[in-house]
């Protein structure tokens, strides 16, 4: 199976979302009570920023070294993008309903719980959207 540069770049995004979910999401789940303590949160935020910068620098540098040619964005890419972003938009709407439903049904809301829920929903939607994007690139 040979993958194009565009497909590899989508896989980099999917991998990032999965790694983020596995490494950082448990922190937000475990520390729901202390998420609004700035001193507690700042360390983690800096850690995340450093991780993001290092991950994308290495991943895209390797991609540029391996694939010298430029990614050609054409009308097929536009169509695939519009299909995957449409799915993403619908999923974001759906997750908004889940979020509101959770707020309405829950008697006690912790701010940390809300942050964790938003982050989890965003990551799930991002992984589904990017996977669908990759699938369309492979099959269209």
């Amino acid at each position, binding site marked *: 199976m040979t993958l194009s540069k*565009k497909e590899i770049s989508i896989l980099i995004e999917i991998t990032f979302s999965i790694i983020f979910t596995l490494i950082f999401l448990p922190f937000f789940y475990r520390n729901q009570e202390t998420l609004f303590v700035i001193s507690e949160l700042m360390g983690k935020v800096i850690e995340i920023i450093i991780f993001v910068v290092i991950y994308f620098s290495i991943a895209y540098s390797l991609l540029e070294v391996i694939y010298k040619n430029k990614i050609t964005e054409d009308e097929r890419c536009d169509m695939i993008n519009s299909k995957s972003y449409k799915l993403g938009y619908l999923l974001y709407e759906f997750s908004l309903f889940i979020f509101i439903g959770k707020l309405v049904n829950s008697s006690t809301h912790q701010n940390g719980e809300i942050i964790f829920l938003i982050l989890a929903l965003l990551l799930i939607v991002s992984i589904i959207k990017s996977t669908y994007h990759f699938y369309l690139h492979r099959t269209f």
Partner: protein
Amino acid sequence: MVLKNNLKEFRQNKDYTQDDLGKSVGVSRQTIISIERYRYKPSLELAMKIARELNIKIEKLFYFA
């Protein structure tokens, strides 16, 4: 009715690779592959660019089957 094409045949007759043809009409190799496999229907503009590049009438390149 399904829109089909003879792109692969005409492209090979002109000794174009998928990459060559893609570059000359401004699309990726994957787009040419998708058109040849009837998975992607090109816009009228792209279809006319391909027909002009291969020096063939558009109705000979694309047809309903």
